[in-house]
């Protein structure tokens, strides 16, 4: 169970998160939608301590922390229960695909090296990249890099994985293969919070869709409800702009 309560965050007096609360059940896949600047990414970064929130409470399992006042030790402890998939992959440039996946096991979790390598190989195989284990990130396509990024997250067996627009830096051609892998992760039953613009992905995979705008959660609910009968006008407006464009092509 993840509880995010009253998270606020401003950058240079611009309020990005006004007061965001969100509950995520174990094994639930939550997709956060919303226009650019609505605070989706900032929310993920605040609860993974990559940004320091101005206030807010975050609970993961039985650990509950104040996001504004948390010790380095607690950050490290909590981070070792989570994983993050970045928009720009952020694979370690000085390490091969296999080393990237094994790093968190060997260095952070002090797993036996041989065992870690074995697990990392399995994870790479699972994302379909067995043949690329000795490749450096620069040698891989965006889609392949992101799949390594997903393997790097999954191998840690975290309690939750955050996905920050995992496909928006990819060539349209490569989005599909990456989404397939993310769907596989969802089926494993790991709790996931996914920020994305991929509507069909949200429809297929999400247990819950959260629509954010202007630093607030406007609406949340089951995808079939949000997509077909949104309650709020702002949600309808946003969805109509995105979804109605799908079948019709404007030149």
């Amino acid at each position, binding site marked *: 169970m993840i509880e995010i309560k009253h998270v606020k965050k401003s950058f240079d007096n611009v309020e990005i998160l006004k007061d965001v609360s969100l509950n995520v059940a174990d094994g639930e896949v939550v997709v956060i939608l919303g226009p650019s600047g609505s605070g989706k990414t900032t929310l993920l970064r605040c609860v993974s*301590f990559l940004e320091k929130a101005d206030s807010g409470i975050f609970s993961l399992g039985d650990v509950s922390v104040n996001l504004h006042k948390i010790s380095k030790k607690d950050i490290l402890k909590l981070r070792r229960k989570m994983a993050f998939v*970045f928009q720009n992959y*952020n*694979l370690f*440039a*000085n390490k091969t695909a296999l080393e990237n996946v094994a790093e968190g096991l060997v*260095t*952070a979790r002090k797993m036996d090296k041989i065992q870690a390598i074995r697990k990392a190989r399995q994870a790479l195989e699972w994302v379909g990249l067995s043949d690329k284990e000795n490749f450096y990130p620069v040698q891989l396509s965006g889609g392949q890099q992101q799949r390594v990024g997903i393997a790097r997250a999954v191998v*840690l067996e975290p309690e939750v994985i955050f996905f920050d627009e995992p496909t928006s830096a990819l060539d349209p051609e490569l989005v599909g293969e990456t989404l397939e892998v993310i769907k596989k992760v969802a089926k494993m039953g790991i709790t996931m919070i996914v920020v994305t613009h991929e509507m069909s992905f949200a429809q297929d995979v999400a247990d819950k869709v959260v629509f954010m705008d202007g630093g607030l959660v406007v609406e949340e609910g089951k995808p079939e409800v949000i997509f077909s009968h949104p309650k709020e006008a702002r949600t309808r407006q946003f969805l109509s702009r995105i979804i109605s464009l799908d079948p019709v092509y404007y030149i």
Partner: protein
Amino acid sequence: MRTFHWDIFLKFYIEILPYLSVTFSYVFFSLLFGFGIGIGITVMKFSGKRILSALASIYISVMRCVPSVVLLFLIYYGLPMMMKGEFGISMDHIGTIVYVIITFSLFLGASTSEIMRAGYLAVGKGQREAGYMVGLSGWQTFYRIIFPQAVRACIPNIGNIIIYMIKEGALAYTIGLQDVLGRGYQLNSLKGNAYSAETYVALALIYWPCTIILEKVFAYIEKKVSLADMIAGQKTEVSMEEI
């Protein structure tokens, strides 16, 4: 025009050559201590403490603005005076080379810290965040992820700074150190400065191979460690100018 005395040139060349050991020893120690100071300054700069970071900036600014020969004189004449006046410590028995090493260590402290800063900044912040998010601590992220990449970014500049040090170190003759230049200067003056051409051609031909060799060595190292060339089977040229 008088003829060039090849015999004198050769004699000088052979006599000066062993003094390379003096040159190399102050280059080595200046670099050693210079990097030490540089690491300290860089750490101060990135400490997040405003006072420390300001002090580091002032240090770098001063060192970059004072000509090395001025600092050399200041250290050579000023330091013993100060030590004697303030602390009653006599520095009479201390060799000239020590002053040279102090001076250039101070200088290199500033320039190496700038190199390290650039190398550190060359590694994107995403790398650090990725390290944190696989559960590495700040220190683990630094030595496993950031440092190896930063060093690669620094290598061409480190080569340049060693070459710079070899050349700039020649100033040591102004305080009477018998290094390569100092020895050449002395040999020439013993002959009434009659063989300046021979002396300085000999000196040029001593310095030149040293820097060329260093340049090649660093080009080789750079090639060895550059990510592009770690790639098996694929050869990618990375030019020095690019970095």
